[in-house]
C-alpha cells in the first residue's frame, strides 16, 4: 500500500510485472476510487465546459466520452480529463486525484454566469476498472445496460451508459488508461466491494488478476499516455505533449487559454515529447538528463521496464524535434553513467484492433 493524494492505494497485489502482463494477455482489476468525479449539470452545462476546457463538449452526444484538458489562461495544463456526457444536461468530469480540488475550483469559477451547477461528487463514487482483452467477456454476464438493446460488447470505445453491474447501479464506460480494451465501472462506494468481488469471481477462470498503481503506470507508459506531473503540468501546453488535437480552436465562443494556445500552435512547441528505449537493464527515471553526443538535450519524464518489449523504456522532453537527432549518439545519464538510448515512435505498444 502507498499514500497517494490522500488515499491509501495498492501499489501492487503481488508482482507488478505479472499484473502488467495479465492486463495485456487477459485482464486486470483496478481500484481507482481516488479519481475525482465532478458533476457539471444544467441547461448551460455544455456551454460552460466549452468555455472551461480545450474541447468542444457540447458537440458530444449523450452516452459518449472524450479525452480533454483544462488549461490556465497562459495555456499551461491544469489537468487532463475524461468527460462523460451522461444526459442532455449532465456531464461527469473525471480528474486526477491530486488535481481534483484545482479542477473543481477552476470549473466553479469558469461556470459562473452560466446556468450550470458544478459539484464535487468524488465521495459519491467508487471506480473499479476491468482492463484487458478478456474484459468484455468478464463484465458482460454481470452488466445490464439501461439503453434498450445495448449489449456491453457492442458499446463503442469512449462511450458509456447507466445500468447495473452485479445488480448494483453503475455508470459503465468503455474507457481506460492501459492501452487495452476495457471498462470503467462507477458505482456507489457502498456497492464497490460487492462489485469488486463479483468481477473477481467472474474473471477468476479467465486470467483476471487484481492490479495496482505500479502496473497501471507501466501500462500507460507503454501505451504512450501522459501522466500529470510527469509529461503534463502548468509549464507545458498540450502542444509540447503532442496532444494539440485536444484544443478545438474552431469551436464557437471564447475559451480559457485560447490566445496563449493559438500563439503556441503558431510558434510550435517549445519542447518535444519523445520515446526512448534504453540499452541496459537500468531504468531512466523521471528527471534524468538525455544527452546527444554528450550534451544535454532533454529530460526524462517517465521511465520503467517494459514487460511487453523486454527492455526499459522512457518518455522525455527534448529541446529539439526528434527528427533532428537522427544520427546523433543518444544516451541517458543514469546516476553518473551515460547509458545508450534510442529514439522510438510513441506509443511503444498498440493493441491489435
Amino acid at each position: 500500500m502507498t499514500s497517494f493524494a490522500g488515499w491509501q492505494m495498492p501499489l501492487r497485489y503481488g508482482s507488478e510485472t505479472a499484473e502488467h502482463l495479465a492486463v495485456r494477455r487477459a485482464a486486470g482489476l483496478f481500484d481507482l476510487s481516488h479519481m475525482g468525479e465532478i458533476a457539471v449539470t444544467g441547461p448551460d452545462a455544455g456551454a460552460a465546459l466549452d468555455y472551461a476546457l480545450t474541447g468542444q463538449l457540447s458537440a458530444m452526444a449523450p452516452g459518449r466520452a472524450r479525452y480533454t484538458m483544462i488549461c490556465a489562461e497562459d495555456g499551461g495544463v491544469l489537468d487532463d480529463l475524461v468527460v462523460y456526457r451522461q444526459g442532455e444536461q449532465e456531464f461527469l468530469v473525471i480528474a486526477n486525484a491530486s488535481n481534483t480540488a484545482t479542477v473543481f475550483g477552476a470549473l466553479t469559477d469558469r461556470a459562473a454566469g452560466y446556468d450550470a451547477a458544478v459539484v464535487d461528487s468524488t465521495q459519491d463514487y467508487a471506480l473499479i476498472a476491468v482492463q484487458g482483452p478478456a474484459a468484455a467477456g468478464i463484465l458482460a454476464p454481470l452488466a445490464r445496460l439501461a439503453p434498450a438493446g445495448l449489449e456491453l460488447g457492442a458499446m463503442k470505445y469512449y462511450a458509456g451508459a447507466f445500468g447495473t453491474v452485479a445488480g448494483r447501479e453503475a455508470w459503465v464506460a468503455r474507457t481506460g488508461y492501459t492501452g487495452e480494451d476495457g471498462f470503467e465501472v462507477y458505482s456507489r462506494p457502498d456497492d464497490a466491494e460487492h462489485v469488486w468481488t463479483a468481477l473477481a469471481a467472474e474473471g477468476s477462470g479467465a486470467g483476471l488478476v487484481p492490479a495496482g498503481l505500479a502496473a497501471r503506470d507501466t501500462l500507460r507508459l507503454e501505451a504512450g499516455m501522459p501522466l500529470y506531473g510527469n509529461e503534463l503540468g502548468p509549464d507545458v501546453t498540450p502542444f509540447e505533449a503532442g496532444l494539440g488535437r485536444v484544443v478545438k480552436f474552431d469551436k464557437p465562443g471564447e475559451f480559457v487559454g485560447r490566445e496563449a494556445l493559438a500563439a503556441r500552435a503558431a510558434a510550435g512547441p517549445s519542447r518535444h515529447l519523445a520515446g526512448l528505449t534504453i540499452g541496459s537493464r537500468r531504468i531512466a527515471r523521471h528527471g534524468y538528463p538525455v544527452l546527444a553526443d554528450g550534451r544535454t538535450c532533454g529530460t526524462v519524464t517517465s521511465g520503467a521496464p517494459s514487460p511487453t518489449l523486454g527492455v526499459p523504456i522512457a518518455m522525455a522532453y527534448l529541446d529539439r524535434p526528434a527528427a533532428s537527432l537522427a544520427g546523433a549518439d543518444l544516451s541517458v545519464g543514469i546516476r553518473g553513467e551515460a547509458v545508450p538510448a534510442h529514439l522510438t515512435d510513441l506509443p511503444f505498444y498498440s493493441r491489435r484492433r
Partner: protein
Amino acid sequence: MSVPAELHYTPEHEWVSLEGTSASVGITDYAAQQLGDVVYVSLPALGATVAAGEPCGEVESVKSVSDLYSPVDGEVTEVNAELEGDPSLVNAEPYAAGWMFRVRVAQDGNGDAALPADLLSAAEYEELTKSAG
C-alpha cells in the same frame, strides 16, 4: 514474510550468513517485497574492499532504486552472476538463489570473523520490520 532464525540482519534490510570467515550477503524478504519486482542489481567488484554501512552497489526495482550496503568489513570474494541474467531471483528466493555477494571477513584475535557489534538477530529484525509497519 520469512526471517530465517540462523541469519544476522541489518537495519538496512540485508542478511548475513556466516560460515567460518566467509559471509554471504543478500537483502531480506521484507526488503524484496517492499521494493517490488527487482529489475537490476549492481554488485561490488571481485576483490573490492567493502566497509560495514557503506554503499557498495544498487538494487533497482520497477518503482525505485536503492543503495546496497555492505553489512560487514572485508574483501569481496564472490558475486552472484546469476542476478545479471535474472534479477527476479531476488524476489523469488531472497535467502537462497537471490544472494548477492560473499565477503572474507577480517578476523579478531581468536581467528573468528569480526562482525560489527550492531548486527541484529532474527527476532530483533522482525521487531524492526513490525514497527516499520
